[in-house]
């Protein structure tokens, strides 16, 4: 007979229970009904702070329960439990009988009773809706031009909230009642360093004090601290701890703990044998756990019990590792040396900005715990060793990099604490061939899919098992793009067929063909449509134009630095008018003409080339634009001629094929009107010369470029950019922008600086020579096509009816211009 399980609450733990039960319940003994108060299904609350990166709630989604045996009722709340009849009632009027009931009601943020805590602009930090609310407050505040915020609570969550505020352009004050930041995880020494590091990042820390009141002052909030300090604020976020949601248990006679939480036994059963409680609402052995991993363990226990098992709560690992505001913090095991006789070994390197402590047993033989601040790279290795023999001298464990012993983990050590996965389980799936890479291990074992801190260890285990991490370009080449580049460069191979014949397999695909085409083009192997290269190109490069959603193309002539004469503007206008092209100023300081059919492209370009225009490479993984501001010529603040430099750079690097597109900008002074720091390479004028920034981009994950050289003259600047670009072209992966390339480099920006500024690899002369060759060999691609009848021949609509326009393309008018009429996607049956 099927029985009915009712779960109250669909947070991460309730979600996990459904998953675990459905996985184990192969004979469908249970039907599951979930009543969830929130309006959306469970999402990754642990990663909530990442929501401010893109404001895309979908990126937090957990796997949906795609399962007929599971019914999820959102936006409804259980308000009544009838324990005798075994029925729950909800606000929506649902009456739900159960055979077993699980309370997974989580917790709510604790808001201390500060007068003024309910004023608009005061928020908590727990749900997507909370963050939307904070954002709305911050955006309203931004328009008035002042930005400061207060986070009440200096724990892990408080610092996360402060970081989120900072991401929204707010300078945060963090107010902590205790004597130090993160009192639960970090000791005094570690917290001292943590405070120093975060204060450098525009956080103001107030410890040993609290808010005594919050008052409204016009559209601002004034917070008075108990130490007399007054803060003038736009927004307040409370992050002063959580309280378990045990109200149902209290109202319907289940036992609750002295300090809250629904009391459960090792089987997670409450004082009613048909009712369980799991996650943050449960009180087990007098503890309420505010972390997700213990909640997941409880969900597994209940799933097992419901199917007649004997599982018990295995105990919780309270270890944490996080990167807060770019600062690594990790705390594991008996971090505060509470165990009788425990000894502490501390390495506190104030110069390097790292603090490390290990706690060992009184005989120094067993590792008990530790704290790492500033550099937590040893965490994935040390945490699983807690409770095990110390390998060698404890000081060596946390000594300077390279000094420590080469550690290998025992097989039963837990590698992923979020999902309780041991080294053995991982090694098994790797050795059996089920998993060959990190994504594979994630899929097979769930390891690495929680906080992600064990991922470096997963990589290490893969190589311990002898699995080389594949950097293969695609199924046709085992080589990375960088390796293929070196092969092509050193062997002088100039065709794809030779390269795949000697170094790959099969016929190639849409990944390797354009990548190899780009490599061959970077090595200056003639026109991109010359000979066999033509077949390798993506449609954009094949037609030297960007394809649009209706199969037409766009035309973007180069307008270096954004500077254009009225005569040339008129030509663009005339061409656009004569061919009926939609015309738009782009974000790159030039003009895009949309809606050209394949057969119109050569006619359009003939007129543009005649007027002195060249390809703008809007279609290529190549240099796009070098934007400029007006600079000294016109602007009263300019300190250098930014337009001249931008034009010089754009002409120098035009046509340069690269792993991904390249963008640049030059600003005439620190006001930065050209947004140079949003570019792959950006230049900002100083009184004495130029500052060069590298590794910026907009797009999905915007990043600011970082300073790599300052106050250099124009000649030095160009040398540095030559080297930077060539080094990137030679060593980056396919479709890797400069920012991620620098990030993935061992040693990051410092290493890059040593290579291109200090010439630590001795390759700078070679890089400069390669760029000089590019500059000498540059020729306009569109002119090349117009002068070659064979290349021109491919620009026809139909091979058997060259003059006939494509009947699927049509336009309608919007605001006086042509825009595409989109055809419904045809029904295709097979």
């Amino acid at each position: 007979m099927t029985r009915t399980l009712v779960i109250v609450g669909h947070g991460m733990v309730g979600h996990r229970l459904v998953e675990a039960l459905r996985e184990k319940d192969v004979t469908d003994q249970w039907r599951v009904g979930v009543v969830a108060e929130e309006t959306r299904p469970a999402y990754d609350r642990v990663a909530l702070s990442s929501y401010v990166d893109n404001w895309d709630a979908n990126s937090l989604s957990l796997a949906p329960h795609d399962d007929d045996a599971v019914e999820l009722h959102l936006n409804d709340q259980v308000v009544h439990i009838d324990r005798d009849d075994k029925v729950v009632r909800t606000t929506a009027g649902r009456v739900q009988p159960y055979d077993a009931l699980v309370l997974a009601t989580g917790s709510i943020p604790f808001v201390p009773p500060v007068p003024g805590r309910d004023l608009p602009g005061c928020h908590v930090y727990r749900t997507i809706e909370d963050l939307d609310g904070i954002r709305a407050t911050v955006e309203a505040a931004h328009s008035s031009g002042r930005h400061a915020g207060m986070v009440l609570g200096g724990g892990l969550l408080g610092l996360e909230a402060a970081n989120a505020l900072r991401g929204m352009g707010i300078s945060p004050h963090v107010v902590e009642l205790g004597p130090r930041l993160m009192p639960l995880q970090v000791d005094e020494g570690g917290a001292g360093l943590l405070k120093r590091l975060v204060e450098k990042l525009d956080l103001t820390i107030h410890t040993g004090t609290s808010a005594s009141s919050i008052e409204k002052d016009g559209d601002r909030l004034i917070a008075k601290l108990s130490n007399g300090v007054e803060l003038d604020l736009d927004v307040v976020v409370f992050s002063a701890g959580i309280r378990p949601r045990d109200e149902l248990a209290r109202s319907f006679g289940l036992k609750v703990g002295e300090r809250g939480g629904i009391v459960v036994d090792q089987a997670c059963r409450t004082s009613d044998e048909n009712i369980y409680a799991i996650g943050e609402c449960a009180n087990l052995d007098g503890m309420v756990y505010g972390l997700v991993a213990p909640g997941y363990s409880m969900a597994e226990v209940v799933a097992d019990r419901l199917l007649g098992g004997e599982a018990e709560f295995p105990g919780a690992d309270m270890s944490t590792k996080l990167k807060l505001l770019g600062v690594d913090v990790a705390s594991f095991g008996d971090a505060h040396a509470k165990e009788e006789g425990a000894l502490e070994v501390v390495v506190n390197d104030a110069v390097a900005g790292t603090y490390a402590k290990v706690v060992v047993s009184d005989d120094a033989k067993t590792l008990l715990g530790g704290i790492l601040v500033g550099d937590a790279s040893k965490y994935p290795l040390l945490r699983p060793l807690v409770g095990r023999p110390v390998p060698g001298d404890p000081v060596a464990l946390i000594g300077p990099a390279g000094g420590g012993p080469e550690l290998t983990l025992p097989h039963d050590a837990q590698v992923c604490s979020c999902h309780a996965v041991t080294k053995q389980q991982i090694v098994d799936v790797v050795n059996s061939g089920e998993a060959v890479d990190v994504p594979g291990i994630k899929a097979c074992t769930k390891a690495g899919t929680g906080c992600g801190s064990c991922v470096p260890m997963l990589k290490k285990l893969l190589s311990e098992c002898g699995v080389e991490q594949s950097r293969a370009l695609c199924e046709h080449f085992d080589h990375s793009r960088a390796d293929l580049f070196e092969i092509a460069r050193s062997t002088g191979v100039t065709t794809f067929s030779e390269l795949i014949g000697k170094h790959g397999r099969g016929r190639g695909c849409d990944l390797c063909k354009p990548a190899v085409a780009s490599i061959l083009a970077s090595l200056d192997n003639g026109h991109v449509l010359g000979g066999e290269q033509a077949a390798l190109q993506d449609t954009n490069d094949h037609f030297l134009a960007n394809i649009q959603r209706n199969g037409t193309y766009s035309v973007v002539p180069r307008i270096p630095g954004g500077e254009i004469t009225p005569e040339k503007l008129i030509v663009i206008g005339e061409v656009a008018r004569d061919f009926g092209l939609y015309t738009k100023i782009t974000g790159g300081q030039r003009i895009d003409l949309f809606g050209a059919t394949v057969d119109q492209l050569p006619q359009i370009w003939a007129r543009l080339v005649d007027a002195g225009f060249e390809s703008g490479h809007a279609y290529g993984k190549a240099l796009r634009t070098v934007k400029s501001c007006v600079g000294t010529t016109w602007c009263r603040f300019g300190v250098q001629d930014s337009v001249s430099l931008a034009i010089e750079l754009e002409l120098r690097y035009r046509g340069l094929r690269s792993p991904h597109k390249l963008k640049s900008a030059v600003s005439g002074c620190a006001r930065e009107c050209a947004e140079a720091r949003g570019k792959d390479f950006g230049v900002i004028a100083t009184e004495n010369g130029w500052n060069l920034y590298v590794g910026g981009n907009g797009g999905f994950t915007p990043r600011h470029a970082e300073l790599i050289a300052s106050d250099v003259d124009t000649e030095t600047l160009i040398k540095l950019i030559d080297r930077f670009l060539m080094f990137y072209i030679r060593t980056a992966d396919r479709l890797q922008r400069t920012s991620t390339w620098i990030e993935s480099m061992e040693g990051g920006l410092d290493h890059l600086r040593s290579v291109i500024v200090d010439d630590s690899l001795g390759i700078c002369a070679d890089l400069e020579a390669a760029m000089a060759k590019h500059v000498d060999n540059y020729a306009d691609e569109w002119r090349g096509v117009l002068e070659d009848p064979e290349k021109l021949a491919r620009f026809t609509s139909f091979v058997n009816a060259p003059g006939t326009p494509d009947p699927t393309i049509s336009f309608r008018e919007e605001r006086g211009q042509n825009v595409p009429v989109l055809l419904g996607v045809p029904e295709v049956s097979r």
Partner: protein
Amino acid sequence: MTPVCELSALQPDRGVAALLPDGSQVAVFLTSAGTVHALGNIDPFSGAAVLSRGIVGDRGGVPVVVSPVYKQAFELTTGKCLDDPSTGVPVHPVVVTDGVIQVGSP
């Protein structure tokens, strides 16, 4: 069967579009292995008549063309979409006689 062009007009691993008498469009490909294939030219994911402009290659040894718009792969011999087997494009019969490619209706 409609004659569309000479075989020599095709470049290996690249396609051309041709118009059939009933107004429909086909994408005709010559692979580097020397085989000729004809598929419906309309990409079912974008609705645009562009399959002839995709990159030809193989996926796991199966010869495919990849749509230039959203990059789904279509098997050259069956028209089946490898990224979404519930959809695909029609396959047209093709013969080469005296160096001329002829395409029929699916």
